[in-house]
């Protein structure tokens, strides 16, 4: 298991990159050697009061001394975060949770994100690109304003919007199916996805039908993020262990192990 830190990480920048979507960069050199793709941090958004719980966010990018998260301001904690400025510090615990399987031999990585769900896949994209693999990315969102990752020379980038304002007009799952149907027989993939659960369920069905292994990054409300409260449980297909903890056994799960993808 990797080492877990609690630290006041200085804010390097916090920019709005799309509609209410922010990219927060924090200086946290201790994380660089510990982080594995798929892990998350838990931010204390208000050290002086509400909300009570920290808020979890996937690490979207990591360099020698900077970690980056991409978040949408949707409620009390994320709106507090939107006010962070360079010079401030964010109290974080991490890196937390397990990580994606990255040893995939000759398989081609397929990274499928819905809305904000692309955040944890960016770090995975970086991992593969740095190892001279060319990942295939699918990112779906409601409309062009919700897209924050629109250019990538080192990957095959496929964008879609529900309203057709950018890229493929339709659901990310439809674009994914079309793509897979066009591939030569025998091409082997390893798929990764994060996004709304109905989307991940549809992707699980697409992958199951084509025998493509799939890992999902799962979100649950978390009181502690480190396995102490037993609150973030999710039902899985293991008779000897019906519930897994998303914060500790996850957030990355084999799609076939979870009951919601049935």
């Amino acid at each position, binding site marked *: 298991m990797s080492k*877990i830190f*609690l630290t006041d990480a200085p804010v390097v920048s916090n920019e709005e990159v799309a509609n209410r979507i922010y990219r927060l960069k924090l200086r946290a050199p201790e994380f660089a050697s510990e982080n594995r793709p798929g892990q998350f941090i838990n931010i*204390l958004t208000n050290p002086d009061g509400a909300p*009570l*719980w920290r808020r979890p966010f996937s690490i979207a990018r990591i360099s020698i001394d900077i970690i980056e998260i991409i978040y949408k301001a949707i409620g009390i904690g994320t709106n507090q975060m939107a006010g962070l400025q360079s010079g401030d510090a964010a109290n974080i615990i991490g890196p937390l949770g397990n990580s994606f399987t990255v040893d995939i031999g000759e398989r081609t990585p397929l990274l499928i994100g819905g809305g904000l769900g692309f955040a944890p896949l960016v770090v995975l994209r970086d991992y593969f690109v740095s190892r001279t693999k060319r990942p295939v990315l699918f990112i779906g969102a409601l409309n062009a304003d919700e897209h924050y990752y629109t250019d990538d020379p080192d990957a095959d980038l496929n964008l879609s919007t529900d309203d057709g304002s950018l890229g493929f007009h339709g659901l990310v799952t439809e674009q994914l199916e079309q793509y897979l149907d066009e591939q030569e027989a025998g091409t082997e993939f390893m798929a990764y996805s994060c996004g709304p659960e109905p989307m991940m369920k549809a992707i699980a069905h697409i992958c199951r039908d084509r025998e493509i292994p799939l890992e999902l990054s799962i979100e649950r*409300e978390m*009181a502690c993020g480190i396995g*102490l*409260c037993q609150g973030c*449980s999710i039902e899985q297909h293991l008779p000897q262990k019906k519930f897994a903890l998303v914060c500790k056994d996850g957030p990355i799960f084999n799609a076939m192990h979870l009951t919601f993808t049935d």
Partner: protein
Amino acid sequence: MADLTTNLAPLTLKNPIMPASGTFGYGDDLPDFVDISEFGGMVTKSLTGTPREGNAPPRIVETSSGMLNSIGLANIGVEKFIEEKLPVVRNKGTILIVNIAGSKMSEYCRVMELLEAESGVDGYEINVSCPNVKEGGMEFGVSEKHMKMLIRELRDITDKPIITKLSPNVTSIQAMAEAAVEAGTDILSLINTLVGARIDIEKQRPVLSTIFGGLSGPAIKPVAVAQVFKVYEAVDVPIIGIGGIANAGDVLEYLMAGASAVEIGTMNYRDPGLGPKLLPEIASWLDEQGFESISEIIGIAHE
């Protein structure tokens, strides 16, 4: 510097702060920045006779200044604890208190008997008050008669200190405290969580799968301080105060209300290292006020 040692007869703690059951696991799997030996003691998650998966999700939700949980005693069971956890936690350099729960009297007894055969356990905290388990039918925490029966049985099994953890969900907590002491309890701890619920207004349904859960966190502190205050006047055994502790001032409040030590629960989720961080401030407050030890302020609010 003021002496932070506290007398929780028959136990002596090097300082008055412990983690509350269910918020620190078994003490073996904490993040690297937490040093369990800096706590006055370690209280484990409730252990039952066999492993439990707990209730269906969702089983936690945030509330104003607090949270609700309906974990339902998810735990690894006493046997696995003895095999895998005890050998690690008994050497952590602090007092080890094992919290015991069950749905039947025989289950509590079996857990204690198995632990009695091992070394390294300094005392037992008896969870008679978990609102989240619906089996067995006997609610030890709300019936004086049943609680007495249970504590008497356990008293026959062990000579180690028995801490009975009281439920706030009763008409008279003093009556429950008196019953527990009469049956042989050495120390009382209070409070466990208060029954609460939240409704999801979009789904128009309860948030928790079990409808009701246990309320904890700063929201419950005034309730808990009141109950500690009452129990201090009703019985002569040491008290451990629990409920909503977030800072050094909160600890001092409990001590003044009559607690000899405290347990911190929900606030560990914000920072599991919180407890020991409060000690220097407590010590300097005592120094500034001219107190030489913690014992001088225990129950001082009653004078």
